[in-house]
C-alpha cells in the first residue's frame, strides 16, 4: 500500500493508494480520480514531519565527483519542515548564484520510536520509503558545520513524495535504480546498491546518538551526476518501485511574490 496527503476538491485528505492505483481516503471514501490528475495537489507525504536527517557524500562516485574522499563515518546534517514541499510543486532558485543542483535521494520514514537500535532490528523501525530532492546552493557553502544551513535549510528546497510505500512492499531496497531527468533528459543514473552507509547502518548509527521518533526521516544521499538548475526547468527524481517526484524551478521573485 502507498500513503499520501493531498488537497482534492478543497479538502486536505490522507489517502491510501492500492496496487490498482485506486485512492481511498482515511474515512473510507473512494476517490474517482486518476493519480496523474491535475485536480490533485500533492502535499509532503509525512503528516507530522519530525527531524529530517540527510546524508552527504553517501555514494562513493558522488564523493569523488565533489573531490572528496568517501567518508569513514556518515556525514549527517539536519533539516526541518520549512524545506518541505510536495510533488508537482515549485522550488526556487535564489538570485545571483552560479550553481544550484538537485539531489535525488531515497528516504526512509521512521515509524516507531527507538534508541540504541541494533542493525538486525533496524528495519522494524522503518515504516516505508519515499523520494526526495535535496537541493543544494553550492555558492553558499562555508566550512562551518558544512553543509551549512544557508545551503540546505531554505524554504521549498526539499520536495518529497508523492507518496510513501510500505516497507514490506519493497523487495530489496538496496538494489533500486535511481534516475533524475531534467527537461526530459536523463542526467543522473545510479543505484541504491552503491550507497556507502545503508539504511540499517544509519538507523543503528543515529539511534546510538539519539532517540528516533515516528515522522523522522532519513534522506540517504545522492549518487554521481548533478547539474545546475535554472528557473523554468522541470526536474523529475525517480526511484524504481518507490515513486517519481516532479518539481518545477521558479525564480526567487516568483516564489516569494509580495514578500520578495
Amino acid at each position, binding site marked *: 500500500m502507498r500513503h499520501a496527503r493531498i488537497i482534492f476538491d478543497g479538502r486536505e485528505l490522507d489517502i491510501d493508494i492500492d496496487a490498482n492505483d485506486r485512492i481511498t481516503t482515511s474515512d473510507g471514501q473512494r476517490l474517482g480520480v486518476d493519480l496523474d490528475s491535475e485536480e490533485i495537489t500533492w502535499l509532503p507525504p509525512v503528516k507530522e514531519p519530525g527531524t529530517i*536527517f540527510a546524508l552527504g557524500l553517501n555514494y562513493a562516485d558522488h564523493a569523488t565527483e565533489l573531490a572528496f574522499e568517501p567518508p569513514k563515518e556518515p556525514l549527517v546534517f539536519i533539516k526541518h519542515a*520549512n524545506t518541505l514541499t510536495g510533488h508537482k510543486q515549485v522550488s526556487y532558485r535564489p538570485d545571483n548564484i552560479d550553481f544550484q543542483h538537485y539531489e535525488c535521494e531515497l528516504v526512509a520514514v521512521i515509524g516507531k520510536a527507538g534508541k540504541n537500535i541494533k542493525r538486525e532490528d533496524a528495519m522494524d523501525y522503518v515504516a516505508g520509503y519515499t523520494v526526495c530532492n535535496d537541493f543544494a546552493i553550492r555558492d553558499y557553502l562555508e566550512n562551518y558545520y*558544512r553543509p551549512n544551513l*544557508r545551503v540546505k535549510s531554505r524554504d521549498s528546497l526539499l520536495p518529497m513524495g508523492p507518496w510513501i510505500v510500505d516497507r514490506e512492499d519493497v523487495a530489496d531496497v538496496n538494489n533500486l535504480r535511481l534516475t533524475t531527468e531534467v527537461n526530459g533528459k536523463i542526467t543522473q543514473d545510479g543505484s541504491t546498491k552503491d550507497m556507502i552507509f545503508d539504511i540499517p547502518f544509519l538507523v543503528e548509527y543515529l539511534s546510538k*546518538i539519539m532517540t528516533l521518533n515516528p515522522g523522522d526521516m532519513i534522506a540517504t544521499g545522492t549518487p554521481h551526476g548533478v547539474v545546475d538548475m535554472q528557473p523554468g526547468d522541470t526536474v523529475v527524481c525517480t526511484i524504481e518501485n518507490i515513486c517519481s517526484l516532479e518539481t518545477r524551478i521558479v525564480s526567487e521573485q516568483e516564489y516569494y511574490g509580495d514578500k520578495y
Partner: protein
Amino acid sequence: MTANTLVNSKLVCVALNDKSQLAALESTFNQDPYKKPPTQPVLYYKPRNTWSVDGAEVEWAKDFDGNNVPAMVVGASLGVVIGRETCRVGQDEALDYVGGYTIVADFSLPEESYFRPDIKGKCLDTSAPVGPEIVPADTIDNPDALTVTVYVNGEQKNEFPLRNMQRSVAELISKISWIMTLQPGEIIAVGFAGDRVPVAQGDRVEATIEGVGTLTNTLGGA
C-alpha cells in the same frame, strides 16, 4: 522531547557569535579545513529529541560502546521566541517579530571542530532545556544589553554580556529569516560564551538572565 517543551517546531542555535572567541580562533580559522573565518552566522539545530524544560534532568551521554562519555559541557543563551511568521525581514524591523524571550541551555560534548555538523556532540536526548518561561517581548527594552550567567553547583563559571556578540539579535533574526521562514514559537538561541563550561555527573547548572529568569537543570548519571 518532553510534552511541555516551550519550543514549537524548531530551535536554531548560533555558534561562534562571541567576538573574543572569534578573535582567539582567528589563526585556526585561516587554516584547513576552514580556510577563512565565517562570513555568515554559524548555525546549528537542536532537534526535537533534545528539547527539555526547567528542572529536568539532563542525560549523561553514552559513547558508541554504551559507556559514559568522559566529558560534557554546557553553554547558555538568550532564547528569542518568534511571535509571528517571519519571512525576509529587515534588521530595522526584526525585533517587531519577537514574541518573547527565554533561556536556552545547550548541553553537548566538548566542541572540538566546527567543520562538519556536530550531530554526535549536539543532538543528545534532553540536552536542550528551554525555560523557565517565556517573558513577553515588551518587558525587555534592549535584548543586546542583557547578560547571561552560568553557575555550576552555585559557583559562577562564566558571564556573557550580549554586547560582546559578533551579530546582534536583530541582525540574526533578519539573516536567518532570509534563509528560512520562521514560525510563531520557533526559538533562536542567539549566542553562547565562547568558553563552554565543563560539567560533571550530578552537577546542578543554573543559567540566569536578569528579567528573563533562571533555568535550572541537573546532570544525570550520578
